[in-house]
């Protein structure tokens, strides 16, 4: 008896669904942009705000999805965007190798792609890249550090998740800058794992291990601040610390003299730029291959001129 009722209900539902599907065919809808990113840091939240705001201004719909640094999840989200039939996708590739497959899927579905903030490996097609010039920004930070240290001494590096785009660019930037300063040596490379806590614990150990330490190069403001706090507590205010990003907290810390400097990134502008380019492309404009957003240096001298976007 019960199963009969269930069967009837299900049959009716399926029929209704099939009818309903036919009825709700295309009415004139807004242009839709899929924005595939991650949201595990204030930086991304700011990029998202910029994207949402710009989309509202330009009268387009934007769907934002959080891939939580997982490339497999991001590829699934790409499938979702294809199924949703969005007009264009702005993609922050979580990792550069696996996302080639993701972008290829979009190519096959004839959905144009704009790559934002991080890079993707060769083998797939996209309209253009827009984002912070991560490498140039890291070079700016490394130079601030080298000049503050007078071009000599031991430094340690707190690096990002190994193999991610920014990690590769920022590590390379430091190596390249150090070539010009032969008296500076990098004595340790430690993953910050996205946690200030870990940086603090590691920093305490490192201060014991390298008593002659004179510089810290951190892939990110949060970690520069954490390292500088430990140095201050240990009375080692002579150690120069640089980060990269330019968060409000960081700018405040630079003004107070806790941290030496940083390079200024503009995530909000990245989000806006991506949406603007997407709309320009959909309007039929021919775009260039790359739209880079620069990162000026911030030190105690000019810290008052910057507000910080995140």
């Amino acid at each position: 008896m019960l199963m009969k009722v269930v069967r009837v209900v299900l049959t009716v539902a399926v029929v209704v669904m099939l009818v309903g599907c036919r009825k709700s065919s295309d009415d004139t809808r807004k242009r839709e942009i899929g924005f595939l990113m991650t949201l595990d840091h204030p930086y991304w939240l700011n990029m998202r705000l910029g994207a949402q705001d710009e989309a509202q201004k330009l009268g387009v719909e934007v769907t934002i999805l959080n891939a939580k640094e997982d490339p497999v999840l991001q590829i699934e989200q790409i499938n979702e965007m294809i199924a949703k039939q969005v007009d264009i996708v702005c993609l922050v590739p979580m990792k550069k190798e696996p996302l080639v497959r993701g972008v290829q899927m979009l190519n096959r579905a004839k959905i144009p792609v704009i790559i934002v903030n991080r890079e993707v490996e060769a083998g797939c097609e996209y309209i253009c890249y827009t984002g912070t010039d991560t490498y140039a920004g890291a070079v700016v930070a490394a130079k601030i550090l080298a000049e503050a240290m007078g071009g000599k001494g031991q430094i340690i590096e707190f690096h990002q998740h190994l193999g991610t785009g920014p990690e590769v660019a920022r590590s390379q930037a430091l190596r390249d800058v150090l070539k010009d300063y032969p008296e500076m040596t990098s004595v340790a490379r430690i993953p910050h794992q996205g946690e200030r806590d870990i940086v603090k614990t590691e920093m305490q150990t490192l201060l014991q291990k390298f008593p002659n330490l004179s510089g810290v190069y951190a892939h990110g403001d949060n970690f520069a601040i954490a390292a500088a706090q430990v140095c201050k507590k240990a009375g080692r205010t002579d150690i120069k610390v640089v980060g990269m990003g330019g968060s409000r907290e960081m700018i405040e810390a630079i003004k107070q003299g806790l941290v030496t400097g940083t390079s200024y990134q503009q995530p909000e502008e990245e989000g806006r730029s991506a949406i603007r380019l997407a709309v320009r492309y959909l309007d039929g404009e021919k775009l260039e291959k790359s739209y880079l957003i620069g990162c000026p240096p911030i030190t105690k001298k000019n810290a008052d001129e910057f507000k910080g976007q995140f």
Partner: protein
Amino acid sequence: MTTDVRKQSAGRTKGAHSFRKFQQASILILLVALCVVASFRSSTFLTWTNIVDNLFTNAAAIGIVALGMTFIMIGGGFDLSVASTIVVCSVVLVMSMDWLSPQGAAVAIPVALLLTVLVGVILGAINGTLIAYIGVNPFVVTLCTMLIFRGIAQILTGGGQTQQVHDILLRRRFDWFYDAGLPLWGGVGIPMPILIFLVVFAVGIYLLRFTRFGHYVYAIGGNEEAAWLAGVNTHRIKALTYVLCGFTCAIAAVIFVAKTETAGAESHMGKELVVIASVIVGGTPLGGGSGGLTATVIGLLLLRVIDNLLTQFNIGPEYRPVVTGLIILVVVTVDVLAKRRGST
């Protein structure tokens, strides 16, 4: 509490049986109702691309693991280490294929597949041995192996570097496991992951319903001691459910590698919870003793449809975990309340 649940499900009267049916039917109705609403509200929901190429294809790999997990959970067990097992398997798959690539695809692919399955089975056997033969709590064992397996993957990949087969031709060959499909009419087809899922599902149904092994799994979940006294080698059967789950993780790893052409130690974070949630939402209780594979598939589809709808209706990412969590909570709570009424 555990003994209570076991006693309840051990007494599988006709009433309890039809109640189970009712519960599964209610979730199925919820699933269909959601789909009906969605197809009215969104013009892109009820399309082949969305339902088959997106929803089912993305659910397939994780669904295969959920099938393995169902065996464990019917037997009253639990496994938190599945995501880590998938990660180790995919890393082993990519690295061994890369290592064997000079031998040609005809050697590299089958041998790498064999190695991957072997690794999945061994990792499952480690869990199974500790839990079934030594008697350590499954939650504790798999919590530890979850960390250990993830760590092993990080060590193998030199601290988490993304692994890739360098031979591009071989890499493309392997994509067959994701890109191929059974062509139907009008240029559409059933993608490979779904076909693989269907095969595993059929084998699973056979094992659970038509073999002595399947009956023993239910018996152990219902009342382990009674099963032991009745002469069932409960240790071996329990251990085998974990081995089976490790095997399904290896198959899922094959699909994931074909999907991304890479393997990374940081992937699949938190997937174990999706797997366990599908089994529970489907109606297999935490104490075991009842439930089934079809139920798990319905549970998984419900979760995936919810997720798909959140995207279709452009719900902000910060609301998604809340909505998903609430729906699971409601389903399980209704289940508990209905069961309480049913048992008195």
